[in-house]
């Protein structure tokens, strides 16, 4: 349907409509978008491009930047993986089971979206510090959580969880009960039904949720810096390094790291979009 709409109006920009206000609303929206979002990003890329590709490469491959990127990406990836597991579990429990407090739990999932990151940061730091409620449990065994990459990981799990839950949950909600029944009538055990029929159907949503959580985690700043300890080469994350460079008035260096991070976020975005497009084409016949 959409195709015929487009081909039918090949040479016009907008399909004629009886409704007014297209020009002014689109004009305002694109102008505002360009000024607030696009212009700053373009300037960033322009600023970084003054270094040239090899200049960016040089900045990005200095040991300290490499270490920071590695810390950011490793902890983000591990946190996203843990969230893949627990996010799916939480979504499953919220959709499939009825128990007292279910709605409260459902609402609580969005807490990381609502709680300012700095608040989450100092709360986590207080909890996981060696003298904090949780940190004190591990301290006797010589395990330090806060002020190590483990602390960063904890903060990124906190930040990423709702992304996974909120992308998996609606898909699970809409999953037809009949499909599971069909599997049962064909002789599958419950375990086979879950692992061969239900979970595979969740994969596109899960990949999307994990990629969103990962992208968010890579750029996360507020909730991490308080718990990270920020030791160069150990627990310094890439966004913090940008701030450090800025404070040293090394704008080019900051821009170069920023562009590397932006590129990686866009790759994540691209992955999300292609996974969604692929699964739509294959499984929904769009």
């Amino acid at each position, binding site marked *: 349907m959409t195709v015929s709409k487009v081909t039918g109006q090949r040479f016009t920009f907008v399909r004629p409509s009886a409704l007014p206000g297209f020009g002014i609303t689109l004009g305002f929206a694109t102008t505002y978008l360009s000024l607030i979002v696009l212009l700053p990003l373009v300037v960033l890329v322009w600023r970084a491009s003054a270094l040239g590709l090899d200049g960016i490469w040089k900045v990005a491959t200095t040991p300290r930047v490499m270490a920071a990127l590695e810390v950011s990406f490793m902890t983000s990836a591990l946190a996203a993986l843990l969230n893949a597991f627990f996010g799916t579990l939480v979504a499953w429990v919220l959709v499939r089971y009825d128990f007292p407090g279910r709605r409260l739990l459902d609402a609580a999932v969005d807490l990381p979206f609502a709680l300012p990151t700095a608040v989450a940061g100092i709360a986590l730091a207080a909890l996981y510090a060696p003298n904090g409620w949780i940190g004190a449990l591990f301290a006797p065994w010589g395990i330090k959580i806060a002020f190590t990459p483990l602390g960063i990981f904890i903060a990124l799990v906190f930040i990423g969880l709702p992304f996974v839950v909120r992308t998996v949950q609606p898909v699970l909600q809409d999953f*037809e009960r009949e499909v599971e029944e069909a599997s049962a*009538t064909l002789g599958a055990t419950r375990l086979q039904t879950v692992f061969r029929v239900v979970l595979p*159907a969740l994969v596109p949503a899960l990949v999307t949720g994990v990629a969103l959580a990962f992208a968010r985690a890579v750029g996360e700043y507020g909730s991490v810096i308080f718990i990270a300890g920020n030791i160069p080469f150990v627990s310094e994350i890439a966004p913090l390094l940008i701030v450090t460079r800025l404070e040293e008035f090394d704008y080019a260096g900051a821009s170069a790291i920023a562009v590397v991070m932006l590129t990686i976020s866009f790759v994540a975005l691209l992955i999300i979009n292609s996974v969604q497009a692929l699964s739509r084409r294959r*499984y*929904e016949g769009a």
Partner: protein
Amino acid sequence: MRKASQLGDVTDMTDTTFDFSGKPIAITAEGLAKSFLGVVAVNGIDLQVKPGELMALLGPSGSGKTTLLRLFAGLETPTAGRILFGDEDATHLPVRERRVGFMFQHYALFKHMSVAENVAYGLHVRPRRLRPSGAEIRKRAEDLLELVQLPGLGKRYPAQLSGGQRQRVALARALAVEPRVLLLDEPFGALDAQVRRDLRRWLRELHDRTGHTTLFVTHDQEEALELADRVAILNRGRLEQLGGADDILDHPATPFVAGFVGDAVRLSVSVEAGWISLGRGKVPAPFQFPAGPAELFIRPYDLTLAHSTGHGTFTGKVVGTRRVGSARRAELILEDGLPSVEVTLPLEHAVLKGEELHLNLLTMRLFPAR
């Protein structure tokens, strides 16, 4: 759009290598009942589908027919009664051990699996010692796809198929587990009229070939009466009548069946001294029919024009006519306050509005009023 081109070959059965082994068994419900949170869906049903029989469960929505089917499949647990598969008590047999081929109304195909994977699923999930080899499973899936006339479509995904094709994939998937019975929930419900008719014939032929004991649910009486060996009519969770098309149409056992099947019109009449008063005339009631209020069911082909007036005839006033196929139907009012009835007339018999016709009643379907 693709449907039309696929339809040509739906009905001609080509020989396939599919081998259906195993003797068909009877399935029996004994006093079967099911209620959901106090709401009764199935209310004590006794019913047997004979080995190899094709039976339809017919009823209005909410009559309990789908629940009954799901009880047979083990998708619901009965609140009372027993289910027998052959002589075996299957009442508490878990669904996965029942070996029923269940086809869902919207097919419930696995969207993320290819057609071949869908069909092979039931074999893949078998315990290792009962599982055929990979090559054997592939072969079986191919044979089944050929049986349902979708050869070569194994690599497609369900979303890439038409409605009719999906239905046949669902059937192939159900057949792959060598089911002891086939249970089909509104098998044609999700298809458009033309595809429906073709697939109906095809299903009948497939049944005759494979000989499965088959129970299917439908709300379409034409479908039930045309396709099934016997039809079970359900209403409010109870079995109203079980019989062949002739039985059901000509000898409805209950007022509900008389009203539900055929385009019957229900007239409230009263019986006095063996006669029913109808439109300035009288019709004899059946022998020893109790006096008092009664319900009379009239179908268009139950009425004929009377050649003379007299005993057993009555009159109706024409309020409209319409053309139905090769005949003409006149809509008549017998008495003010009664719903209009229809009579089939030969095409050459033109009638005018307001004209009075003398009528005979050929078949008497009379029940005491409840």
